């Protein structure tokens, strides 16, 4: 039935245009994989730093705080860990950006448009709030909250972002929040949870998305005749 098939195609076209004009669809699965690999590498560096410091049991009694701390070596450790975290974030961001840039070039959608701006803005709000929360946690020496805080706020940012990009991002967000919340009751194992969330979950998500949308060459949007 020609009229019916034509109507079905028209409706699909309408749906596709509505999605393309409101969502940032160039997000590449490879971006997820690369971010995950960066996270695991960063976690590995952090792990080796931590195990190194654990051997130097130089405890000092700090009168201000009324408890024993690893004086000097502790603040050095924190500096090192912050440096590793920053480098990991930068590497993850750059590689993730690169793959998404390549995909947007391939399927001919502009990288910087209204949809990108909307996605960016809605992701950054939970991230900045979370970042401030974490900085304050470091100030207050609540180091155990850093890993779960990262995971939970990042997860919330993803759930919020999913309305403005591929809807599947929502499930990645749920996963991060879930891991972060479990971590809240297993303080001290933060690095493992951090690696599971930012490393493993990203890679699994990226792989699934790549298989779903990018493996076949059919990612080209249909060109419209007439």
């Amino acid at each position, binding site marked *: *039935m020609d*009229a*019916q098939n034509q*109507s*079905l195609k*028209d*409706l699909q*076209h*309408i*749906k596709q*245009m*509505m999605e*393309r*004009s*409101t969502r940032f669809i160039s997000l590449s699965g490879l971006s997820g994989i690369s971010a995950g690999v960066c996270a695991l590498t960063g976690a590995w560096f952090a792990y080796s730093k931590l195990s190194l410091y654990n051997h130097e049991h130089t405890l000092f009694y700090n009168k201000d705080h009324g408890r024993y701390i690893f004086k000097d070596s502790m603040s050095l450790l924190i500096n090192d860990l912050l440096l590793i975290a920053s480098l990991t974030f930068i590497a993850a961001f750059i590689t993730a950006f690169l793959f998404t840039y390549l995909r947007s070039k391939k399927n*001919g*959608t*502009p990288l910087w*448009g*209204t949809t990108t701006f909307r996605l960016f803005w809605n992701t950054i709000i939970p991230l900045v709030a979370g970042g401030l929360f974490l900085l304050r946690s470091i100030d207050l020496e609540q180091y155990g909250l850093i890993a779960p805080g990262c995971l939970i706020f990042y997860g919330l940012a993803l759930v919020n972002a999913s309305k403005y990009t591929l809807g599947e991002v929502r499930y990645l967000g749920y996963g991060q929040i879930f891991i972060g919340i479990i971590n809240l009751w297993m303080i001290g194992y933060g690095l493992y949870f951090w690696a599971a969330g930012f490393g493993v979950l990203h890679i699994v998500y990226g792989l699934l998305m790549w298989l779903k949308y990018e493996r076949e060459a059919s990612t080209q*949007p249909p*060109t*419209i*005749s*007439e």
Partner: protein
Amino acid sequence: MNPIENLNKTFDSRVRLGIMSTLMVNDQINFNDLKQLINVTDGNLASHIKALEENGYIKVNKGFIGKKTNTTYTVTKVGKKAFEQHLAALEKIIKGMK
């Protein structure tokens, strides 16, 4: 009555469907964004926009960003209603398939 008669002839073209779909879910959109989304030439897009404008379905707002012209489009109430009726007609035809 044959549901095909309920289809709006103005929305016969893919380009016009594209323009209307985009405007239904965005408050406003400018010419360049529309061009990239629909993937057509300037002239082609302009002629379809004109047809929709003449039907009173979309509104053209001419503005400036600095010295550059920035023309944006919004859907009118009439356009919204016409498009919704067109969608309903499409759905009816598909349901008749079963």
